[in-house]
């Protein structure tokens, strides 16, 4: 069995769930590691908790939520080199483009928005492949929505998958969990991935090898990054 990772999980202090509970459930579900990526703009006290080392099982990360490109650049400069995983809160097309053009970013979380309202164009996916920024397939909206909404989300994901296959960009599957009840075991996530045409091998790759490589900065150029 490969080692499975979930690189977008929110815990205390952004949500009320303690980090320990999250880790225990993730371990029970068979994950080899999860990354706690709280948003960086939620509060002051967060910073103290965020930057204390958690354990070998959990990786520290940060999800940057910016309103403009200049703000995004400033935040990336602030957090770059401080945390093992630098994610950007996607959704806005301008922010998406700026994040995917920046090779310091590791992961673009939910590029179509948290409820999959937007779109990702082929140009952006090409940038992602060039700068080896992983594109996130967020499974939380599939679990939460029903009927018409779910059909739209699956359709969008199918289109994204087509682009990712075409340009050989890094695809990653995350749960975007905010409580222990949002987490799903790896085998369940692989079954969910088959709903929008992702093959089993692809899903396993997006859950194990790609996240591990992203944490180790495997695909980044040596001059650009320093491994923490």
């Amino acid at each position, binding site marked *: *069995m490969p080692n499975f990772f979930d690189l977008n999980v929110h815990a205390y202090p952004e949500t009320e769930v303690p980090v320990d*509970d999250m880790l*225990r*459930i993730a371990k*029970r*579900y*068979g994950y080899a590691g999860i990354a706690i990526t709280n948003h960086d703009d939620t509060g002051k006290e967060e910073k103290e908790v965020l930057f204390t080392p958690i354990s070998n099982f959990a990786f520290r990360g940060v999800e940057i939520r910016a309103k403009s490109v200049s703000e995004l650049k400033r935040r990336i400069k602030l957090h770059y080199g401080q945390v093992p995983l630098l994610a950007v809160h996607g959704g806005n097309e301008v922010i998406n483009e700026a994040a995917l053009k920046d090779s310091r970013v590791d992961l673009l979380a939910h590029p179509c928005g948290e409820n999959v309202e937007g779109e990702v164009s082929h140009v952006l996916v090409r940038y992602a492949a060039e700068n080896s920024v992983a594109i996130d397939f967020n499974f939380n909206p*599939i*679990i*939460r929505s*029903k*009927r018409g909404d*779910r059909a739209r989300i699956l359709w969008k994901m199918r289109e994204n998958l087509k682009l990712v296959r075409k340009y050989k960009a890094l695809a990653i599957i995350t749960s975007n969990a905010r*409580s*222990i*009840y*949002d*987490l*799903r*075991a790896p*085998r*369940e*996530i692989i*079954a*969910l991935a*088959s*709903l929008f045409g992702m093959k089993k091998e692809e899903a396993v790759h997006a859950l194990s090898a790609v996240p591990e490589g992203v944490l180790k900065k495997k695909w980044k150029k040596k001059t650009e990054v320093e491994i923490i």
Partner: protein
Amino acid sequence: MKKKVECKGQNKFYVLHFAFLLPPTLRERKRYIVFEVISEREIAKRELVEEINDAIYSLYGDVGASKSRIWLIGYKKKKKDEDTGTDVGVGILRCAHDKVEEVRAALACIHSVNEARIGIRVIKISGSIKGATRLTKSFLEKSSTLKHQISN
């Protein structure tokens, strides 16, 4: 035409009922899914059945649901698991042998039962009801023995 079935020491109805069962070669193949439910509060079996049916119907429609032939065989609650700190229950769900992945996806889609948040994880797929019940018993008695199995 009524035939009298004579059978020593056995009930007449039992024998008649037995005669209506399909021969083994004509029976449909099944799999038994053993799953655990982590929930905010205790969940009744009836609530869970409704929710599972709803998930299957909304994901695959009437035709897909009829092909998967799901049936909740049993559900047992285990009060306050030490490991998770929440209410935990274990259930056995029967389905068609080639629709396991589909049912698994539908189970993963369930996020709440009557406004109580839940999360479902499949523990094991079994080919016989004997194996499934044995696994459920061991899970309800000792969760630590099962952890070892899951990690492998």
